Every structure is written in structure tokens, then in C-alpha cells.
């Protein structure tokens, strides 16, 4: 079966790259599942959302919290570019929770900081 070549990059480093069966990203309008053979799309990521990748080698799903960014799909190549990107396994849950508390304390509901903190918690597999 064909696989997707996935690159998840932030300006400072390549966060993850490899072959995948499926990628799920969230745009402003909703979730988008990408499988091999998808039509070329250039989409805007929802700031503070989670990108999920199912690796081709059958390993566990990889989750990553992303900030402002976009993704492009062309010829079974998926590039996710985000100004902030962090793998779920790298998230320090206590830090993320603290950020969330601060964002909530700051008052404005549904702020970017709050969404980002929640995304990091979700990516890490913790209760958000």
C-alpha cells in the first residue's frame, strides 16, 4: 500500500519525519483526514490544535501540538509547518497545565494561549 511521506517542521527544527498511513489535521473549518492519493491541498491549521500521524510501520499514533501554521499535501507528500510544534511525548504535562491555568486566569475565554495549552495536554494524552 502506498504511504505518505510526512514532514512535521517548525522553524527551529524538524520535529518528525517519516512514512505514514494517515495524517489527521485540524483546520479552522474542521478535521481533515489525509490518506495516500489525496488531492493537493494547502490548508491553514487551527492555532492550538493536535496533528495525529499513523506511522507506516504500524507503531503507535504520533500526536503533536501545533500553533499557528499550515499544511500542504501534494503527490503523497504531507508537510506540516507550524511556528510552534511539539510532540506529545515531549510535552511536560505539569508545565502545560500551569500554562492552561494561567491562560484561564487571564480571563478571556477561548484565547490562543488556552487553546495551545489544551492542545499540548491532549497531545500528551492527558485530560484537558
Amino acid at each position: 500500500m502506498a504511504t505518505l511521506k510526512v514532514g512535521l517542521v517548525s522553524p527551529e527544527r524538524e520535529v518528525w519525519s517519516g512514512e505514514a498511513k494517515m495524517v489527521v489535521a485540524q483546520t479552522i473549518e474542521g478535521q481533515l483526514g489525509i490518506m495516500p492519493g489525496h488531492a493537493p491541498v494547502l490548508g491553514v491549521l487551527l492555532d492550538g490544535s493536535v496533528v495525529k500521524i499513523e506511522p507506516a510501520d504500524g507503531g503507535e499514533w504520533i500526536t503533536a501540538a501545533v500553533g499557528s501554521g499550515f499544511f500542504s499535501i501534494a503527490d503523497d507528500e504531507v508537510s506540516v509547518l507550524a511556528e510552534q510544534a511539539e510532540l506529545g511525548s515531549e510535552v511536560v504535562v505539569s508545565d502545560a497545565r500551569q500554562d492552561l491555568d494561567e491562560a484561564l486566569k487571564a480571563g478571556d475565554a477561548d484565547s490562543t494561549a488556552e487553546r495551545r495549552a489544551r492542545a499540548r495536554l491532549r497531545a500528551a494524552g492527558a485530560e484537558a
Partner: protein
Amino acid sequence: MAQLRQLRQRIRSVSSTAKITRAQEMIATSRIVKAQQAVAASKPYADQITQALTALVSHHVGIDHPLLNEQPEDKRTAVLIVTSDRGFCGGYNANVIREAESLIKALREQGREPIPYVIGNKGLTWYRFRDREMAESWTGFSDRPTFASAEQIGRRLAADFLKTDAEGGVGEIHVVYTEFISMLSQEVQVRRLMPLEVTEREAEANAAVLPSYDFEPSAEAALDLLLPNYIESRIFHMLLQSAASEHAARRRAMKSATDNANELIGVYTRQMNQVRQAAITQEISEIVGGADALADSGGE
């Protein structure tokens, strides 16, 4: 004998200076490697964003976005000057500032009104000392820039670009930074950052055809996001290049300082040996003279 003591003291002080410069040199050497790795790590993002922007622009002829428009009525021009926070790096900052000053002069001759935006403590001190007007300054990250700082700078510049002269905005943005070419050569570069020049290159015969993308949610939304990100990524690239150059310049300056110190120690050591030898010779001749005089007087 006083001279001997002085020379010893001087050797001591020069060798402690040499130790410091040698340490600085080694720190700079290791940081160049890190800075180069940072440049390499930022490349995939920069390439991808350029590709996406190219795809977007080439499929939408007559694309219109405020960040792309020329603003001939705005005479104020931002000059972003990338200097270092710390000294000890030879002519690095002097070169950047000289280039920036000649750019400012050239812009003035074109009837524009250049305004410096300064990055790095050294540039800031230079402009502050001369009481020049500065729109903004950023310090504290010149040797290890993070994307967050590039983002901050990019946001401010983009915001100023969208304002008119009367509101304190600018009509053009130029950047003066140092490109890292190799360990031995770094070159000061002057680039126009905004308005962006989107050149629609003729597709070469065998160049890969860019796929015709669908846009989610829309091309305008994608452009709204891509353009600022692209600008920030450009600034980040310039900051990283400048940081690598700064370390390379510092390494070179510190290496020549260490070499000079070692040479000086050699000179002083020779002088000291000469003085010591002269003192011994004098002492011997005094003893011999004294003994002769005694022998002469004893013989009578």
C-alpha cells in the same frame, strides 16, 4: 633589578589575558558549529514555506495583499540593522554599521526618510550615543536567536508596514545583516524585505510542475497566514546567519588576540632573560673586581 620585576609582572598579566582570549576563542569555535546546525535545522521550514508561497502565487494571477503592495506615498523607510550584543568580535559590528550608514545616506538621497530599527546591544549603543532617532530596538538574543524573537520583530515590522507615514508607519523595509559564507569569510548584506518581490519565474522546461492546490478554507486565508510567516522565516534566517557570522568573527578576533599575546610574552621573556643575565654578569664582575682589589691590597 626593578626592571626585572616589572617584566615579570607584565608577563603575568599578558598571559592571563591570553588565557581569557583563548577561552573566548574556544567558546566561539564550539558555538559556530551550533549556529551552523541551527541554520541547517531551519532550512526545511524555510524551503517548504517558500515552495507553498510560490505555489499559491503562481496559481493566482493578480494576487493582491497589503503586504505585497508598493507604497510610493510613504517616504519613511525602515532599516533593520542586525548587530551583536557583545563586543570582542573584531570589525563585525563596525562593518554592519558602516554598511547601514551608507544605505541610510543613499536612501536619503533618494528622498526617503530612513529610520533605524536596531537589533543587538552594540548597534543600540552606537545609535543612542549619537542621539539618533530609532523606531525600535531589540537586544538579548543576538548570539542564539530563537524563532520567537524573529516572530516579534516580524510582527512589529509588518504592522508598521501596513501603517501610513502619518501614523508612524513605513513604506519600505530594508535589512542589513551578515551572511555566513565560510569560517573565514562573512559578508555584510543589504536586502529589501518589504514590499515582498513576488517574481513569477517562467517555469523551466524540466522543472517539476507545481500541483494545483485546493485551499482550505480559502486562498486569501492561506495568504494571510503565509505572508507573515514567510517574513518571519526570512528574518529568522537572517538572525541565524548573523549569529553564525558573529561567532566566526569573534573566533578570528580572539585567535589573533591570543597570538599577539603569546608573541608579546615571547618578547618580554627574552627581555627579562637579558636583564637577568646582565645583572649576573655585573655581579660577577663586581666580585672579581672586589677580589682583585683585596688581593692587590693583601700583596703589599
